[in-house]
């Protein structure tokens, strides 16, 4: 089941990247997809290290749209700082707790923090991230907690 999904994704990627729909070329693509599948399944049997995407698709799409708005706003804020004559920088390193249960959720949270300019995830520790802000304001922890709650709502299952 899982392998079939991987094969479909790989083959679609091949077709889209090559853009040539001739039998010979498509055959080569199929052969390389099969080879890749063979290698990945062997690797999987070796360490069993897999990543499961336990996310609700619709909610996650909504979250991405919201994130885009956030990115736009944050970009504008940092742009103003860069272009201001006196550059009102107020740097601060602070801790932000996370509530996601899955690895993927935590990665999404950490990357979302970094994607919005002005805040960068610097270090991951048990139960919280270290976040660096270039112009820290007292509302920042609340804004990050809001983002955290939104991502946690996207998770469908609570595996470790």
């Amino acid at each position, binding site marked *: 089941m899982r392998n079939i999904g991987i094969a479909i994704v790989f083959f679609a990627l091949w077709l889209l990247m090559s853009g*040539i729909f*001739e039998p*010979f*070329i498509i055959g080569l693509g199929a052969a390389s997809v099969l080879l890749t599948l063979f290698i990945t399944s062997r690797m999987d049997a070796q360490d069993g290290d897999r990543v499961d995407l336990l996310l609700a698709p619709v909610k996650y799409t909504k979250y991405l749209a919201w994130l885009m708005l956030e990115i736009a706003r944050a970009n504008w804020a940092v742009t103003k700082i860069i272009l201001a004559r006196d550059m009102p920088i107020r740097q601060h390193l602070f801790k932000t707790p996370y509530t996601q249960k899955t690895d993927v959720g935590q990665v999404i949270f950490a990357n979302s923090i970094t994607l919005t300019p002005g805040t960068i995830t610097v270090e991951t520790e048990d139960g919280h991230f270290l976040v660096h802000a270039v112009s820290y304001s007292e509302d920042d922890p609340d804004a990050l907690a809001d983002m955290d709650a939104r991502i946690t709502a996207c998770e469908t299952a609570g595996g470790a």
Partner: protein
Amino acid sequence: MMLDLFIDLSLFTMLVATGIAIVKMRRLFGVTMMAGVFSLLSAMLLVTLDAVDVAFTEAAVGAGISTVLMLSTLTLTSRIEKKPVHTPWIPLLVVTVTGAAIIYGTLDMPHFGDANAPAQVGVAAQYMERGPEDMDIPNVVTYILASYRGYDTMGETAVVFTAGVGVLMLISGLRRRRRKHPKDEGEVG
């Protein structure tokens, strides 16, 4: 046309500036980073010259592997380049003379994209004509390299592969030997 010239000139200016900076810089880590940028710039030039396949190679070798290899080398040596003991004038003279000779040589070369250039009048025309029927592969460079010059390419690939394996063995061997001294005998990350 003007725009092409402008793009080429800007890229070349940045390339030369990076080259001078590499020569001037004593901090070897900075040199490594500069070399990465140098390779990125030359790849951009290759793209503007339509040499897409060479740009591919430059991406994999120049920007990817060589930076990592240079960093691994940096772990084995010091971080600051030593001051040269000899005067720079004789090397500069040699380089200037060589450069002048090369530029003099290019005067005889055909222009870029000249249809009457020796490279174009040989078998190239036949390859271009017959290739699509013989091979049924849409990319010209690919079918010439993989079929008409198949043995040549195989030999090249073997040489490059051997060199790569050799370098990797050298580096990993050195690291293991150095690691034997401290307390952590067993585990090699």
